[in-house]
């Protein structure tokens, strides 16, 4: 990769950041232009990302030195295929949620804060993109902090008392975990003297401070477990995700936690590389057990929820367990499953939250039993929901099926049949909570007058992103062969 193209990844990250900085000025000139301008910045980012298609080798990575400083001192972006793939996922889903926000956010947020919402939104997307491709572990921390702070603020953006409380709960769990990440980085630095991931990977093998390394790894994993809301550290998630404005829930649930879960993979495969002394095996085993518990616990809790968004949030808890089980299988198939699950979980979960947003926008409905007969009134939303739910359950031919296939296969291959069974049980639970909603929507007659006068479906500005996402679940299932081969290669090279 040469010429101007090699600057594209960093441009993808900086564009939304520049956009975030410009938004207050644009708002000063003309407030109505803010949503469009921010969408433009993200769209430009996505376009740059599309220009990179085929340029990133599946079995290797492209380094980019910020400011031309040599790696051990300067900050390096390490764009490997997995990172690029996730960057595109982040870009795409963020763009759609952003477009969706325009009509929705007018309702929920006072006028003055709309600009703030978009600024934070752009910062969040930019930091997530940086988060997945950075090759410097301290840079990882910085991006994670931008990501976390903008998430806290976005949960609370409506200023409503429950929202602030949920955001504060999120902060109370998130901030200590951030500090623990810093502690972990400090521990690593103290025994290796470097912050570059590739360099770290090399020096960890040579370093003699075994206990310190084990502690560093455990601290990092524990910290990211909080960020990724992996059972039993998920306590902040259901409140925060269900109370945030729906496009924000889509971002938080679809991307933020999944990307944080992926960070565990980054630490494991790019830094600790799983080889020396079986450094990480006991932590990984504990992590896998937590993941399995998350799959079951999240699924069961989701079944008992009465609040629609709460149910989707618990489903996220369950799906984070899937990703962890894939990562800890330590084989290319499991890792591919996990990465592909970040994609299909992101797309499907974002779609579910946007559907929930449509109901809230039109009818203020939050409870599942209020959805009876919704099909008659809002058919487009309901069909989009059904398609996305299909993928959440993991039924063929949706994207969820493909990732489930690789997750289960990876676990069987790693000789972890019990975990494979847990994954399957998880999808049974998913079927239960999804079909319950589908049943209410499509096969239950609505109560007389429950829907009042004829309610129109959501405006097309909201329906379009919802439908693009729900069709994407099918697209990435049917056309998974476009990605799986490269992902498998990338995963094999990571291991």
């Amino acid at each position, binding site marked *: 990769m040469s010429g101007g193209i090699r600057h594209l990844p960093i441009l993808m990250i900086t564009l939304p950041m520049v956009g975030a900085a410009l938004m207050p000025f644009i708002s000063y000139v003309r407030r109505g232009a803010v949503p469009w301008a921010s969408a433009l910045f993200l769209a430009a980012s996505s376009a740059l990302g599309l220009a990179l298609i085929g340029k990133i080798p599946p079995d290797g990575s492209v380094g980019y030195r910020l400011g031309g400083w040599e790696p051990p001192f300067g900050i390096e972006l390490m764009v490997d295929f997995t990172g690029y793939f996730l960057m595109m996922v982040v870009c795409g889903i963020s763009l759609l949620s952003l477009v969706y926000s325009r009509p929705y956010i007018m309702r929920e947020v006072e006028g003055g804060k709309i600009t703030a919402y978009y600024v934070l939104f752009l910062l969040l997307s930019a930091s997530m993109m940086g988060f997945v491709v950075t090759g410097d572990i301290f840079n990882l921390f910085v991006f994670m902090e931008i990501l976390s702070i903008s998430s806290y603020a976005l949960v609370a953006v409506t200023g409503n008392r429950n929202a602030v409380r949920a955001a504060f709960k999120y902060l109370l769990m998130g901030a200590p975990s951030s500090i623990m990440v810093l502690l972990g980085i400090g521990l690593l630095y103290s025994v290796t003297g470097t912050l570059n991931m590739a360099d770290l990977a090399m020096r960890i093998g040579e370093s003699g401070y075994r206990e310190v390394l084990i502690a560093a790894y455990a601290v990092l994993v524990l910290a990211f477990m909080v960020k990724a809301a992996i059972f039993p550290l998920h306590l902040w998630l259901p409140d925060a995700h269900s109370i945030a404005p729906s496009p924000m829930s889509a971002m938080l649930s679809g991307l933020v936690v999944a990307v944080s879960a992926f960070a565990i993979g980054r630490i494991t495969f790019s830094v600790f590389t799983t080889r020396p002394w079986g450094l990480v095996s006991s932590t990984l085993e504990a992590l896998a057990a937590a993941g399995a518990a998350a799959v079951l616990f999240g699924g069961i809790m989701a079944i008992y929820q009465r609040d629609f968004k709460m149910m989707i949030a618990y489903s996220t808890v369950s799906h984070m367990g899937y990703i962890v089980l894939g990562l800890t299988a330590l084989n290319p198939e499991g890792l591919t499953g996990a990465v592909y699950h970040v994609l299909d979980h992101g797309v499907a979960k974002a779609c579910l939250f946007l559907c929930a947003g449509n109901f809230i926008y039109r009818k203020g409905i939050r409870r599942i039993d209020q959805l009876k007969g919704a099909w008659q009134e809002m058919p487009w939303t309901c069909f989009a929901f059904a398609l996305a739910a299909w993928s959440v359950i993991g*039924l*063929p031919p949706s994207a969820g099926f*493909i990732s489930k296939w690789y997750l289960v*296969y990876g676990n*069987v291959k790693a000789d972890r049949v019990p975990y494979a069974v847990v994954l399957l049980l998880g999808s049974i639970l998913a079927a239960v909570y999804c079909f319950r909603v589908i049943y209410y929507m499509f*096969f239950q007659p609505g109560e007389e007058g429950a829907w009042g006068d004829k309610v129109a479906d959501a405006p097309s500005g909201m329906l379009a992103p919802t439908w693009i996402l729900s069709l994407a679940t099918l697209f990435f299932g049917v056309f998974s062969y476009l990605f799986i081969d490269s992902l498998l290669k990338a995963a094999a090279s990571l291991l």
Partner: protein
Amino acid sequence: MPEGATRSVVPLLPVLLPWISLVAILLMPKKAPRVRLWLCFAGSALTFLVVILMLPGVLDGKTYYFKLASIVEGLEISLYVDTLGYYFALVLAFMWMLATLYSISYIDHKHNRFFAFLALCCSFLIGCAFSRNMFTYFIFYEMMTFGSYPLIIHEETTMARRAGYKYLVYAIAAGTVLFFAIIANYFWGGGVLDFERWGLLSLETASRAALLTIFFTYIAGFGVKAAIMPLHGWVPDAHPAAPSPASALLSGVILKAGAFGIMRVIFNLFGVDLMKELGVHWIVAVFACITIVMASVFALTQDNLKRRLAYSSIGQVSYIILGLTMVSRDGALGGVMHLAHHALMKACLFLCAGVILVKTGKKNISEMRGIGYRLPVTMICFSVCALAMMGTPPSVGFISKWLLGSGSMQAGLPVYVVILLVSSLLNAAYFLPIIYTAFFRWEGDEEGAHHPKLDFSTENDQLMMGPVVLLALLVVVVGIWVTVPGFPYSLASRVVDFIFP
């Protein structure tokens, strides 16, 4: 690309053609109901036509192959027409055409939903029949499973909802078990799941315990659809709840998708030899025997006609399973042929039950006194099929039973003959009273009143009567001219020739 196969788009056509109905429904959801329904029928008729046109090629020994997508090496979504798959596709396309025709007149509300899902299921089932590997089969199978849910709960009564719920519970559990089986098979089968060999797995590539796990998870997964006891729970609820054409398809084809899956597992993935070596065939056979007898006993106690027929289906599908697990040439032949034979008979019986329901509103057998005089054609067709079910010659039922009996002698296990005879007896015990009530009892017969006059006027609905009569005729005709090309024997014998050369 399978050996000797022709790369051709032909297998894709029958999968896509049913979508004509869907397009018709989507394009004109409210206008011109008759035109729309006839377009739906045209979709299924065209599908059948295309399948029929493939017959000469298939009888010539040709196989067709079409790749939809390849996910990674060895794991691809592709269509492949071999004799066995073609045989199933032929049966189901024919049944589907008749059921669609029948539904035009039968379904009286929410046409769009019913016909849309009817078409979808048809498409997915043909996809099942033409799957090249278990991966593709599973994809289509699961879509078909959930696509048939709206058919079952179509009436939207409390009973239908409950049946639908039960169906979903069974389907989801079975799908999960199956998913595990396929992954295990993929892992221990060397990363391939293809159907084109007669025995993919072997003891060299996988341990005995692994093979046993795979085999029984497969059987459990497909056994739910094939209603092997004790996995049959959803069947007796779903059939009476669903509209009659849907129950005809449920019994005639969808249950068979499970049996067909077991065929693929036994013939293509494991191979008869490996199954024998593992010594698992008799375990399945025992379950099949239990199902055959118990289902008939349960059927005896049912008063609801469709429920009785549903129990009968449970028993009959286990004939197929029993035939497959006999490990003898005639047994396999009988099993494979019974797939089509039973579809003909049971579909006709359910369609008759539908006619009775529409014309007289009667569901229970005890209310059907003298119904043979009010609906003579229907009840004659019903009687023909019921007699065929008992194995009376000349009929398809007789052929199946004959072959199965001969198969058990070949396998050296005459005990199966006893089971078959007991089952025939029980069949007689639950079918004959229906015929007796219909023709030899009437209102006031105990007081010596003369039987009522035959009344042909009520059966004026050709759309419903056509399929019923055609099926009843075929039950006899196929049972007499067994070897006509295109009839089950011509295809099934080719399949069995591969397995027992």
